[in-house]
Protein backbone atom coordinates (compact mmCIF):
# COMPACT_ATOMS: atom_id res chain seq x y z
CA UNK A 1 0.00 0.00 0.00
CA UNK A 2 1.35 3.44 -0.83
CA UNK A 3 0.46 6.94 0.19
CA UNK A 4 -1.53 7.66 -2.98
CA UNK A 5 -3.69 4.63 -2.29
CA UNK A 6 -4.14 5.99 1.18
CA UNK A 7 -5.02 9.29 -0.45
CA UNK A 8 -7.77 7.68 -2.52
CA UNK A 9 -9.20 5.87 0.45
CA UNK A 10 -9.09 9.13 2.38
CA UNK A 11 -10.74 11.24 -0.28
CA UNK A 12 -13.38 8.56 -0.81
CA UNK A 13 -14.40 9.17 2.74
CA UNK A 14 -16.85 11.77 3.67
CA UNK A 15 -16.68 13.34 7.07
CA UNK A 16 -17.24 11.03 10.00
CA UNK A 17 -20.62 11.89 11.45
CA UNK A 18 -20.28 11.61 15.22
CA UNK A 19 -21.79 13.75 17.91
CA UNK A 20 -18.62 15.07 19.53
CA UNK A 21 -17.46 18.59 20.33
CA UNK A 22 -14.92 18.39 17.50
CA UNK A 23 -17.63 17.67 14.89
CA UNK A 24 -19.83 20.41 16.35
CA UNK A 25 -17.07 23.02 16.20
CA UNK A 26 -17.46 25.58 13.45
CA UNK A 27 -15.42 24.72 10.33
CA UNK A 28 -13.65 28.08 10.50
CA UNK A 29 -12.35 27.32 13.99
CA UNK A 30 -10.99 23.94 12.92
CA UNK A 31 -9.45 25.51 9.83
CA UNK A 32 -7.84 28.17 12.02
CA UNK A 33 -6.41 25.47 14.29
CA UNK A 34 -4.96 23.75 11.21
CA UNK A 35 -3.28 26.98 10.03
CA UNK A 36 -2.15 27.97 13.53
CA UNK A 37 -0.60 24.58 14.43
CA UNK A 38 1.22 24.42 11.11
CA UNK A 39 2.63 27.93 11.42
CA UNK A 40 3.74 27.39 15.04
CA UNK A 41 5.71 24.21 14.27
CA UNK A 42 7.42 26.05 11.42
CA UNK A 43 8.36 29.03 13.62
CA UNK A 44 9.94 26.78 16.25
CA UNK A 45 12.65 24.24 15.47
CA UNK A 46 12.09 21.58 18.05
CA UNK A 47 11.03 17.95 17.54
CA UNK A 48 9.66 17.67 21.11
CA UNK A 49 7.37 20.64 20.58
CA UNK A 50 6.28 19.08 17.28
CA UNK A 51 5.53 15.83 19.12
CA UNK A 52 3.40 17.73 21.67
CA UNK A 53 1.37 19.33 18.87
CA UNK A 54 1.06 15.97 17.15
CA UNK A 55 -0.12 14.30 20.38
CA UNK A 56 -2.73 17.01 21.02
CA UNK A 57 -4.03 16.78 17.44
CA UNK A 58 -4.14 12.98 17.53
CA UNK A 59 -5.95 13.07 20.90
CA UNK A 60 -8.63 15.28 19.32
CA UNK A 61 -8.76 12.91 16.34
CA UNK A 62 -9.24 9.88 18.61
CA UNK A 63 -12.03 11.69 20.43
CA UNK A 64 -13.66 12.64 17.10
CA UNK A 65 -13.27 9.01 15.85
CA UNK A 66 -11.18 10.01 12.84
CA UNK A 67 -7.78 8.87 14.10
CA UNK A 68 -7.39 5.66 12.06
CA UNK A 69 -6.91 7.22 8.59
CA UNK A 70 -4.72 9.96 10.07
CA UNK A 71 -2.40 7.50 11.81
CA UNK A 72 -2.24 5.32 8.69
CA UNK A 73 -1.30 8.33 6.55
CA UNK A 74 1.42 9.34 9.01
CA UNK A 75 2.79 5.79 9.15
CA UNK A 76 3.04 5.61 5.37
CA UNK A 77 4.34 9.10 4.65
CA UNK A 78 6.28 10.24 7.67
CA UNK A 79 7.85 7.13 9.19
CA UNK A 80 9.78 6.09 6.02
CA UNK A 81 10.76 9.72 5.52
CA UNK A 82 12.25 9.96 9.03
CA UNK A 83 14.03 6.62 8.59
CA UNK A 84 15.59 7.65 5.28
CA UNK A 85 16.36 11.26 6.22
CA UNK A 86 17.99 10.48 9.55
CA UNK A 87 20.06 7.69 7.98
CA UNK A 88 21.46 9.94 5.24
CA UNK A 89 21.70 13.22 7.15
CA UNK A 90 22.81 12.08 10.64
CA UNK A 91 25.59 9.80 9.39
CA UNK A 92 28.74 11.15 7.70
CA UNK A 93 27.30 11.33 4.20
CA UNK A 94 28.16 14.98 3.67
CA UNK A 95 25.33 16.95 5.32
CA UNK A 96 27.20 20.27 5.45
CA UNK A 97 25.99 21.45 8.88
CA UNK A 98 27.06 18.32 10.79
CA UNK A 99 29.41 19.23 13.68
CA UNK A 100 28.35 17.70 17.00
CA UNK A 101 28.92 13.95 17.41
CA UNK A 102 26.39 12.54 19.88
CA UNK A 103 27.00 8.81 19.41
CA UNK A 104 28.75 6.20 17.31
CA UNK A 105 27.15 3.22 15.63
CA UNK A 106 28.80 0.06 14.44
CA UNK A 107 27.80 -0.70 10.85
CA UNK A 108 29.34 -3.96 9.55
CA UNK A 109 32.44 -3.41 11.66
CA UNK A 110 32.80 0.27 10.64
CA UNK A 111 32.26 2.83 13.38
CA UNK A 112 30.20 5.76 12.12
CA UNK A 113 29.57 8.97 14.05
CA UNK A 114 25.98 10.16 14.52
CA UNK A 115 25.63 13.93 14.26
CA UNK A 116 23.14 15.99 16.24
CA UNK A 117 22.52 18.52 13.44
CA UNK A 118 21.60 15.94 10.81
CA UNK A 119 19.55 13.90 13.28
CA UNK A 120 17.66 16.99 14.43
CA UNK A 121 16.98 18.05 10.84
CA UNK A 122 15.91 14.56 9.78
CA UNK A 123 13.40 14.29 12.63
CA UNK A 124 12.14 17.88 12.93
CA UNK A 125 11.14 18.43 9.30
CA UNK A 126 9.02 15.27 8.89
CA UNK A 127 7.40 15.97 12.27
CA UNK A 128 6.47 19.45 11.09
CA UNK A 129 4.74 17.86 8.12
CA UNK A 130 3.10 15.35 10.50
CA UNK A 131 1.48 18.18 12.43
CA UNK A 132 0.38 19.85 9.19
CA UNK A 133 -1.11 16.61 7.82
CA UNK A 134 -2.85 15.54 11.02
CA UNK A 135 -4.41 18.96 11.69
CA UNK A 136 -5.54 19.22 8.04
CA UNK A 137 -7.11 15.76 8.15
CA UNK A 138 -8.75 16.51 11.48
CA UNK A 139 -10.44 19.50 9.80
CA UNK A 140 -11.34 17.57 6.63
CA UNK A 141 -12.62 14.37 8.25
CA UNK A 142 -14.66 16.09 10.95
CA UNK A 143 -16.40 18.66 8.73
CA UNK A 144 -19.06 17.44 6.29
CA UNK A 145 -19.09 18.86 2.75
CA UNK A 146 -22.22 20.94 3.17
CA UNK A 147 -20.67 22.58 6.23
CA UNK A 148 -17.41 22.92 4.31
CA UNK A 149 -19.27 25.00 1.71
CA UNK A 150 -20.65 27.20 4.47
CA UNK A 151 -17.19 27.52 6.03
CA UNK A 152 -15.61 28.59 2.75
CA UNK A 153 -18.51 30.94 2.00
CA UNK A 154 -18.15 32.62 5.38
CA UNK A 155 -14.41 32.97 4.71
CA UNK A 156 -15.39 35.08 1.67
CA UNK A 157 -14.04 32.54 -0.81
CA UNK A 158 -15.61 33.24 -4.25
CA UNK A 159 -18.51 30.93 -5.07
CA UNK A 160 -16.88 29.55 -8.23
CA UNK A 161 -13.77 28.60 -6.25
CA UNK A 162 -15.96 26.90 -3.62
CA UNK A 163 -17.71 24.92 -6.35
CA UNK A 164 -14.40 23.89 -7.93
CA UNK A 165 -12.99 22.74 -4.57
CA UNK A 166 -16.04 20.73 -3.55
CA UNK A 167 -16.43 19.35 -7.09
CA UNK A 168 -12.84 18.07 -7.01
CA UNK A 169 -13.56 16.19 -3.79
CA UNK A 170 -16.59 14.64 -5.50
CA UNK A 171 -14.87 13.85 -8.81
CA UNK A 172 -11.89 12.05 -7.29
CA UNK A 173 -13.75 8.94 -6.03
CA UNK A 174 -15.89 8.87 -9.21
CA UNK A 175 -12.84 8.98 -11.47
CA UNK A 176 -10.96 6.52 -9.27
CA UNK A 177 -13.84 4.04 -9.65
CA UNK A 178 -13.95 4.64 -13.39
CA UNK A 179 -10.18 4.16 -13.69
CA UNK A 180 -10.56 0.87 -11.87
CA UNK A 181 -13.32 -0.25 -14.28
CA UNK A 182 -11.21 0.74 -17.31
CA UNK A 183 -8.19 -1.07 -15.91
CA UNK A 184 -10.22 -4.25 -15.31
CA UNK A 185 -11.64 -4.01 -18.84
CA UNK A 186 -8.18 -3.58 -20.34
CA UNK A 187 -6.79 -6.48 -18.32
CA UNK A 188 -9.70 -8.68 -19.42
CA UNK A 189 -8.84 -7.96 -23.07
CA UNK A 190 -5.21 -8.87 -22.57
CA UNK A 191 -3.40 -5.90 -21.03
CA UNK A 192 -0.30 -7.34 -19.38
CA UNK A 193 0.88 -5.71 -16.18
CA UNK A 194 4.13 -7.71 -15.77
CA UNK A 195 5.98 -5.74 -18.45
CA UNK A 196 9.08 -3.55 -18.68
CA UNK A 197 9.21 0.21 -18.02
CA UNK A 198 8.19 1.24 -21.56
CA UNK A 199 5.33 -1.27 -21.44
CA UNK A 200 4.12 0.20 -18.16
CA UNK A 201 3.98 3.67 -19.69
CA UNK A 202 1.97 2.23 -22.62
CA UNK A 203 -0.34 0.61 -20.08
CA UNK A 204 -0.69 3.98 -18.41
CA UNK A 205 -1.85 5.47 -21.71
CA UNK A 206 -4.29 2.60 -22.20
CA UNK A 207 -6.03 3.57 -18.98
CA UNK A 208 -5.62 7.32 -19.02
CA UNK A 209 -6.89 8.04 -22.56
CA UNK A 210 -10.36 6.48 -22.12
CA UNK A 211 -10.55 7.92 -18.62
CA UNK A 212 -9.86 11.43 -19.87
CA UNK A 213 -12.26 11.21 -22.79
CA UNK A 214 -14.98 9.89 -20.51
CA UNK A 215 -14.32 12.63 -17.94
CA UNK A 216 -14.40 15.34 -20.60
CA UNK A 217 -17.65 14.01 -22.02
CA UNK A 218 -19.21 14.58 -18.64
CA UNK A 219 -17.90 18.13 -18.44
CA UNK A 220 -20.57 19.47 -20.77
CA UNK A 221 -23.38 17.63 -18.98
CA UNK A 222 -22.19 19.07 -15.68
CA UNK A 223 -21.94 22.54 -17.19
CA UNK A 224 -25.53 22.36 -18.48
CA UNK A 225 -26.73 21.08 -15.09
CA UNK A 226 -24.99 23.93 -13.30
CA UNK A 227 -26.52 26.48 -15.64
CA UNK A 228 -29.96 24.95 -15.20
CA UNK A 229 -29.55 25.46 -11.46
CA UNK A 230 -28.75 29.12 -12.02
CA UNK A 231 -25.03 28.83 -11.22
CA UNK A 232 -24.14 31.97 -13.18
CA UNK A 233 -27.32 33.84 -12.25
CA UNK A 234 -26.55 37.21 -10.67
CA UNK A 235 -28.50 36.51 -7.49
CA UNK A 236 -27.60 35.99 -3.85
CA UNK A 237 -26.68 32.36 -3.19
CA UNK A 238 -28.35 30.50 -0.35
CA UNK A 239 -26.69 27.89 1.87
CA UNK A 240 -27.81 24.57 3.30
CA UNK A 241 -26.33 25.38 6.71
CA UNK A 242 -25.87 28.67 8.49
CA UNK A 243 -22.56 28.99 10.31
CA UNK A 244 -22.53 30.71 13.67
CA UNK A 245 -19.88 30.69 16.36
CA UNK A 246 -21.14 29.14 19.61
CA UNK A 247 -19.75 28.78 23.13
CA UNK A 248 -17.43 25.79 22.37
CA UNK A 249 -16.02 27.71 19.39
CA UNK A 250 -15.21 30.73 21.52
CA UNK A 251 -13.60 28.50 24.19
CA UNK A 252 -11.48 26.79 21.54
CA UNK A 253 -10.46 30.16 20.10
CA UNK A 254 -9.58 31.41 23.60
CA UNK A 255 -7.34 28.35 24.11
CA UNK A 256 -5.56 29.11 20.84
CA UNK A 257 -5.00 32.72 21.91
CA UNK A 258 -3.69 31.73 25.36
CA UNK A 259 -1.39 29.10 23.82
CA UNK A 260 -0.09 31.67 21.35
CA UNK A 261 0.76 34.08 24.17
CA UNK A 262 2.56 31.33 26.12
CA UNK A 263 4.47 30.20 23.02
CA UNK A 264 5.44 33.79 22.20
CA UNK A 265 6.84 34.14 25.72
CA UNK A 266 8.76 30.85 25.30
CA UNK A 267 10.16 31.99 21.93
CA UNK A 268 11.37 35.33 23.30
CA UNK A 269 12.77 34.05 26.61
CA UNK A 270 13.95 30.52 25.85
CA UNK A 271 14.33 30.44 22.08
CA UNK A 272 13.15 28.64 18.98
CA UNK A 273 14.25 25.25 20.30
CA UNK A 274 13.05 25.27 23.92
CA UNK A 275 13.32 21.52 24.64
CA UNK A 276 16.13 20.13 22.51
CA UNK A 277 18.16 23.35 22.04
CA UNK A 278 18.98 22.57 18.42
CA UNK A 279 21.00 25.07 16.42
CA UNK A 280 19.08 26.84 13.64
CA UNK A 281 21.32 25.68 10.85
CA UNK A 282 19.95 28.06 8.25
CA UNK A 283 21.58 30.92 10.16
Amino acid at each position, binding site marked *: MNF*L*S*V*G*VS*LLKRTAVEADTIIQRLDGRVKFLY*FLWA*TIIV*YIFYDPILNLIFLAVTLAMAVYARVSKPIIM*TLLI*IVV*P*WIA*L*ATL*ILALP*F*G*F*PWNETVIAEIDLFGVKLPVYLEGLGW*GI*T*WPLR*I*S*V*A*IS*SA*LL*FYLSTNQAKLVTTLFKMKVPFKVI*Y*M*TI*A*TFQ*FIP*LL*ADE*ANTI*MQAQISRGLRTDVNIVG*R*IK*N*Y*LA*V*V*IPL*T*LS*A*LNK*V*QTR*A*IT*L*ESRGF*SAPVKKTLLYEAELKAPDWIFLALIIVSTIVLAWVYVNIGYSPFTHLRWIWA
Partner: protein
Amino acid sequence: MAEEKKEVEVVEISPTGKAIIAVVLIPTIAALNYVGGVIVEALKAPIWGDTWATILGTLIGGFWVGAAGGFLYNIIMALTVWGLPAWVWGFANVAIALIAYFMMKMGWTDLKKPMTWIMMIILYGLVYPIFTTAISIGIFGGGPLVKPLPAAVYAWVLKSTGNFYLANYLQNVSTEIIDKPISFIISVIIAQRIPKRFILVK
Protein backbone atom coordinates in the same frame (compact mmCIF):
# COMPACT_ATOMS: atom_id res chain seq x y z
CA MET B 1 -32.85 23.00 -63.90
CA ALA B 2 -30.20 21.03 -62.20
CA GLU B 3 -30.47 20.97 -58.52
CA GLU B 4 -27.59 22.75 -56.91
CA LYS B 5 -25.59 20.73 -54.53
CA LYS B 6 -25.72 22.28 -51.14
CA GLU B 7 -22.65 21.96 -49.03
CA VAL B 8 -23.58 21.03 -45.54
CA GLU B 9 -21.41 22.65 -42.96
CA VAL B 10 -21.23 20.81 -39.69
CA VAL B 11 -21.07 23.23 -36.83
CA GLU B 12 -20.53 21.95 -33.34
CA ILE B 13 -22.89 23.77 -31.04
CA SER B 14 -21.79 24.40 -27.56
CA PRO B 15 -24.86 24.84 -25.40
CA THR B 16 -23.08 26.51 -22.57
CA GLY B 17 -20.59 29.33 -22.35
CA LYS B 18 -16.86 28.78 -22.31
CA ALA B 19 -16.62 30.29 -18.86
CA ILE B 20 -18.89 27.68 -17.31
CA ILE B 21 -17.11 24.88 -19.22
CA ALA B 22 -13.84 26.18 -17.78
CA VAL B 23 -15.35 26.17 -14.27
CA VAL B 24 -16.21 22.47 -14.65
CA LEU B 25 -13.01 21.65 -16.51
CA ILE B 26 -10.78 22.92 -13.69
CA PRO B 27 -11.94 20.43 -11.01
CA THR B 28 -11.89 17.68 -13.65
CA ILE B 29 -8.22 18.46 -14.30
CA ALA B 30 -7.48 18.50 -10.58
CA ALA B 31 -9.21 15.13 -10.15
CA LEU B 32 -7.46 13.66 -13.22
CA ASN B 33 -4.08 14.72 -11.78
CA TYR B 34 -4.95 12.91 -8.59
CA VAL B 35 -6.28 9.75 -10.20
CA GLY B 36 -3.35 9.78 -12.66
CA GLY B 37 -1.00 9.51 -9.71
CA VAL B 38 -3.01 6.62 -8.32
CA ILE B 39 -2.93 4.76 -11.66
CA VAL B 40 0.85 5.20 -11.77
CA GLU B 41 1.13 3.53 -8.40
CA ALA B 42 -1.19 0.71 -9.49
CA LEU B 43 0.74 0.08 -12.72
CA LYS B 44 4.13 0.79 -11.12
CA ALA B 45 5.01 3.15 -13.99
CA PRO B 46 8.34 4.98 -13.49
CA ILE B 47 6.84 8.49 -13.18
CA TRP B 48 4.96 10.60 -10.62
CA GLY B 49 2.08 10.92 -13.08
CA ASP B 50 0.20 13.63 -11.19
CA THR B 51 0.89 16.63 -13.43
CA TRP B 52 -0.03 15.46 -16.92
CA ALA B 53 -3.59 16.74 -16.54
CA THR B 54 -2.19 20.22 -15.81
CA ILE B 55 -0.41 20.10 -19.18
CA LEU B 56 -3.51 18.67 -20.86
CA GLY B 57 -5.67 21.40 -19.31
CA THR B 58 -3.28 24.01 -20.69
CA LEU B 59 -3.32 22.46 -24.16
CA ILE B 60 -7.12 22.36 -24.33
CA GLY B 61 -8.22 25.21 -22.08
CA GLY B 62 -5.31 27.63 -22.10
CA PHE B 63 -2.82 28.68 -19.45
CA TRP B 64 -5.30 29.77 -16.76
CA VAL B 65 -7.39 26.59 -16.94
CA GLY B 66 -4.30 24.35 -16.72
CA ALA B 67 -2.66 26.42 -14.00
CA ALA B 68 -5.88 26.67 -11.94
CA GLY B 69 -6.55 22.93 -12.25
CA GLY B 70 -2.98 22.11 -11.22
CA PHE B 71 -3.01 24.61 -8.38
CA LEU B 72 -6.36 23.31 -7.11
CA TYR B 73 -4.99 19.76 -7.11
CA ASN B 74 -2.17 20.86 -4.84
CA ILE B 75 -4.52 22.77 -2.57
CA ILE B 76 -6.72 19.68 -2.19
CA MET B 77 -3.68 17.55 -1.43
CA ALA B 78 -2.32 20.14 1.00
CA LEU B 79 -5.64 20.24 2.84
CA THR B 80 -5.76 16.46 3.16
CA VAL B 81 -2.89 14.07 2.54
CA TRP B 82 0.27 16.17 2.17
CA GLY B 83 -0.10 18.84 4.84
CA LEU B 84 -0.46 22.60 4.55
CA PRO B 85 3.10 23.50 3.42
CA ALA B 86 2.53 21.38 0.31
CA TRP B 87 0.24 24.06 -1.09
CA VAL B 88 3.34 25.81 -2.42
CA TRP B 89 3.75 22.93 -4.89
CA GLY B 90 0.77 24.58 -6.57
CA PHE B 91 3.26 27.09 -7.96
CA ALA B 92 5.18 24.17 -9.48
CA ASN B 93 1.99 23.26 -11.32
CA VAL B 94 1.67 26.87 -12.46
CA ALA B 95 5.25 26.65 -13.78
CA ILE B 96 4.37 23.40 -15.57
CA ALA B 97 1.34 25.07 -17.17
CA LEU B 98 3.46 28.06 -18.14
CA ILE B 99 6.05 25.85 -19.85
CA ALA B 100 3.28 23.92 -21.63
CA TYR B 101 1.67 27.17 -22.79
CA PHE B 102 5.02 28.51 -23.99
CA MET B 103 5.70 25.30 -25.89
CA MET B 104 2.23 25.40 -27.41
CA LYS B 105 2.67 29.01 -28.53
CA MET B 106 6.09 28.24 -30.00
CA GLY B 107 4.61 25.32 -31.94
CA TRP B 108 6.66 22.75 -30.02
CA THR B 109 3.82 20.27 -29.55
CA ASP B 110 4.46 18.25 -32.69
CA LEU B 111 6.13 15.08 -31.45
CA LYS B 112 7.62 14.44 -34.89
CA LYS B 113 9.80 17.56 -34.63
CA PRO B 114 13.20 17.12 -32.91
CA MET B 115 12.88 20.67 -31.51
CA THR B 116 9.87 19.57 -29.45
CA TRP B 117 11.93 16.83 -27.82
CA ILE B 118 14.96 19.05 -27.22
CA MET B 119 12.95 21.89 -25.64
CA MET B 120 10.82 19.46 -23.67
CA ILE B 121 13.91 17.94 -22.05
CA ILE B 122 15.61 21.31 -21.46
CA LEU B 123 12.57 23.11 -20.05
CA TYR B 124 11.00 20.29 -18.07
CA GLY B 125 14.11 18.23 -17.29
CA LEU B 126 16.68 20.91 -16.47
CA VAL B 127 15.04 24.33 -15.96
CA TYR B 128 11.92 23.25 -14.06
CA PRO B 129 13.96 21.35 -11.36
CA ILE B 130 15.61 24.66 -10.38
CA PHE B 131 12.18 25.81 -9.30
CA THR B 132 11.31 22.57 -7.47
CA THR B 133 14.70 22.55 -5.74
CA ALA B 134 14.07 26.05 -4.38
CA ILE B 135 10.71 24.94 -3.00
CA SER B 136 11.95 21.64 -1.59
CA ILE B 137 14.82 23.32 0.28
CA GLY B 138 12.91 26.40 1.40
CA ILE B 139 9.75 24.69 2.59
CA PHE B 140 10.65 21.06 3.22
CA GLY B 141 14.26 21.26 4.30
CA GLY B 142 15.63 19.61 1.19
CA GLY B 143 16.07 16.05 2.43
CA PRO B 144 16.11 12.92 0.29
CA LEU B 145 12.94 11.89 -1.56
CA VAL B 146 11.18 8.74 -0.39
CA LYS B 147 11.97 6.91 -3.63
CA PRO B 148 15.03 4.67 -3.95
CA LEU B 149 16.65 6.09 -7.12
CA PRO B 150 16.42 9.82 -6.28
CA ALA B 151 17.47 9.10 -2.68
CA ALA B 152 20.52 7.21 -4.00
CA VAL B 153 21.41 10.13 -6.32
CA TYR B 154 21.00 12.53 -3.39
CA ALA B 155 23.23 10.47 -1.09
CA TRP B 156 25.85 9.94 -3.80
CA VAL B 157 26.11 13.63 -4.81
CA LEU B 158 26.11 14.78 -1.18
CA LYS B 159 28.85 12.29 -0.33
CA SER B 160 31.01 13.10 -3.35
CA THR B 161 30.65 16.89 -3.46
CA GLY B 162 29.37 17.90 -0.01
CA ASN B 163 27.15 20.38 -1.88
CA PHE B 164 23.71 20.25 -0.30
CA TYR B 165 22.07 22.38 -3.00
CA LEU B 166 23.59 20.45 -5.90
CA ALA B 167 22.49 17.16 -4.30
CA ASN B 168 18.93 18.45 -4.10
CA TYR B 169 18.99 19.78 -7.67
CA LEU B 170 20.37 16.57 -9.19
CA GLN B 171 17.95 14.50 -7.13
CA ASN B 172 15.10 16.51 -8.66
CA VAL B 173 16.59 16.31 -12.15
CA SER B 174 16.77 12.52 -11.82
CA THR B 175 13.00 12.35 -11.40
CA GLU B 176 11.78 15.30 -13.47
CA ILE B 177 13.82 14.56 -16.58
CA ILE B 178 11.81 11.36 -16.97
CA ASP B 179 8.47 12.31 -15.45
CA LYS B 180 7.67 15.67 -17.03
CA PRO B 181 8.62 14.90 -20.65
CA ILE B 182 6.58 11.66 -20.42
CA SER B 183 3.68 13.62 -18.92
CA PHE B 184 3.98 16.15 -21.75
CA ILE B 185 3.97 13.40 -24.39
CA ILE B 186 0.93 11.74 -22.78
CA SER B 187 -0.91 15.06 -22.71
CA VAL B 188 -0.11 15.84 -26.35
CA ILE B 189 -1.30 12.37 -27.42
CA ILE B 190 -4.55 12.77 -25.48
CA ALA B 191 -5.09 16.36 -26.68
CA GLN B 192 -4.93 15.12 -30.27
CA ARG B 193 -7.79 12.71 -29.57
CA ILE B 194 -10.13 15.13 -27.85
CA PRO B 195 -13.30 16.31 -29.64
CA LYS B 196 -12.98 19.89 -30.86
CA ARG B 197 -15.85 21.17 -28.74
CA PHE B 198 -13.67 20.80 -25.67
CA ILE B 199 -10.80 22.82 -27.08
CA LEU B 200 -11.29 26.24 -25.56
CA VAL B 201 -7.91 27.64 -26.52
CA LYS B 202 -7.37 29.20 -29.92
